[in-house]
């Protein structure tokens, strides 16, 4: 079992806190660089779409936000599963750290989609499979956050949230494949499909950069939130007191 010691060390709050402290600035700066490249190129230098003109440029925010809304839910459910099965405190904190970030990206995806929908579809909102299931996803995030805040004991709260997140994960494939399963008004994917993408390189590269940049940004925010969460939970333990003493807080 000696090969698993790194895993146990990683799962202990103090060593994870230190690792996160070293990792977070890297994620943050690389995210900033990629987002700057992606958004400046996407918003100013990428060619116009032949049909949607300049309105298509919202994909540089919308696509990353929508992808993150699903990925973060899966991440939250995986953290919940780990928290339930192995009772790992770090996973419980991770679940709580992810939920508001995921909710924010889901809301961002919905709002940017609505702003794009008005000029393109002529309506801010249509009751369509993709839009509705994304809205349901937002409510699932709200459910986890609401449940978390209703409990007083953080461990009981985390396990209840974990159960809810794991049960709710059934919505993720519905959102992901809603465009393929139902004849949705929402357009299908242009980038991530087999073979040749139906998007020109001058549009695609900034998009890839903004997607990866957004993932790294989410990673940065989650690590920082997780650090806060760990500090609050472990307040009063020796390692937190030592850390706080050092940074003169």
């Amino acid at each position, binding site marked *: 079992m000696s090969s698993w010691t790194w895993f146990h060390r990683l799962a202990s709050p103090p060593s994870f806190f230190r690792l996160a402290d070293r990792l977070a600035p890297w994620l943050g700066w690389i995210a900033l660089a990629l987002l700057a490249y992606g958004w400046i190129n996407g918003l100013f230098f990428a060619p116009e779409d032949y049909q949607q003109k300049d309105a298509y440029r919202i994909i540089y925010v919308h696509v990353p936000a929508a992808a993150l809304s699903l990925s973060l839910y899966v991440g939250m459910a995986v953290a919940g599963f780990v928290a*339930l099965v192995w009772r790992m405190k770090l996973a419980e904190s991770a679940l709580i750290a992810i939920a508001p970030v995921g909710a924010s990206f889901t809301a961002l995806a919905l709002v940017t989609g609505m702003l794009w929908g008005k000029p393109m579809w002529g309506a801010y909102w249509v009751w369509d499979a993709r839009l509705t299931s994304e809205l349901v996803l937002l409510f699932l995030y709200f459910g986890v956050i609401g449940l978390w805040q209703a409990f007083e004991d953080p461990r009981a709260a985390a396990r209840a949230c974990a159960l809810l997140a794991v049960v709710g994960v059934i919505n993720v494939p519905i959102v992901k494949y809603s465009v393929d399963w139902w004849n949705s008004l929402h357009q299908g994917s242009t980038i991530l499909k087999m073979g040749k993408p139906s998007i020109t390189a001058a549009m695609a590269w900034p998009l890839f950069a903004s997607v990866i940049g957004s993932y790294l940004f989410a990673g940065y925010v989650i690590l920082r939130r997780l650090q806060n969460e760990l500090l609050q939970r472990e307040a009063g333990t020796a390692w937190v007191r030592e850390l706080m003493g050092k940074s003169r807080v």
Partner: protein
Amino acid sequence: MNVILAVLTRELRLALRSRMDWLLPLLFFVMVVMLFGLGARPNDPVLAGFAPSILWVGALLSMLLTLDRLFRADYEDGTLEQLCLAEAPLTLTVAAKLTAHWLLTGLPLVLLAAPLAVALQLPAAGQPALVLGLALGTPVLSFVGGFAAALTVALPRAGLLLPLLVLPLLAPVLIFGAGAVRAALGGLDAAAPLYFLAAVLVLCITLVPWAAAAALRNAFE
């Protein structure tokens, strides 16, 4: 099997002695439908088009009313703790309790929906799909709602939180349930959405008791 029977008979006997507990949600269901009728223009033909969603939303809401009470009384008088400690597997006990909940709230709603659909002037073609859909969908409401009730059983004011937890999870049931009626009204085969509801029901019966039992255990830790 004995556990299931014992819990079932206990729940039904309790319900017989406090009739209001399961009659009130039915009255609520009738009143919701009545208010939709009153809110529309007299004899508005549009109402028939909305009948599937009115009936489904009414059923959802009146089941929602009963959820807070599902485990609460047993939690407060200590019965639930005994059930958690008992030798009989908690999963089975929970499954029996949820089945009893459906028998007391879901089944009457299904039976009541048919006359109410007539009152809303739903054409006869849509009736079987509505009743079948509700018969397949209301147990899902009981099971998923029971899971949410189990999650919040230790919380003093769960009533406000329950709709937020339950309704998003039940959105697919509403979509396919009302969709089956619309398909039947449009002269299409309603079998596909009904099969989907049946699949969701099977999934719920097999998986939800585990999750609900875990949630109840969590309340006592």
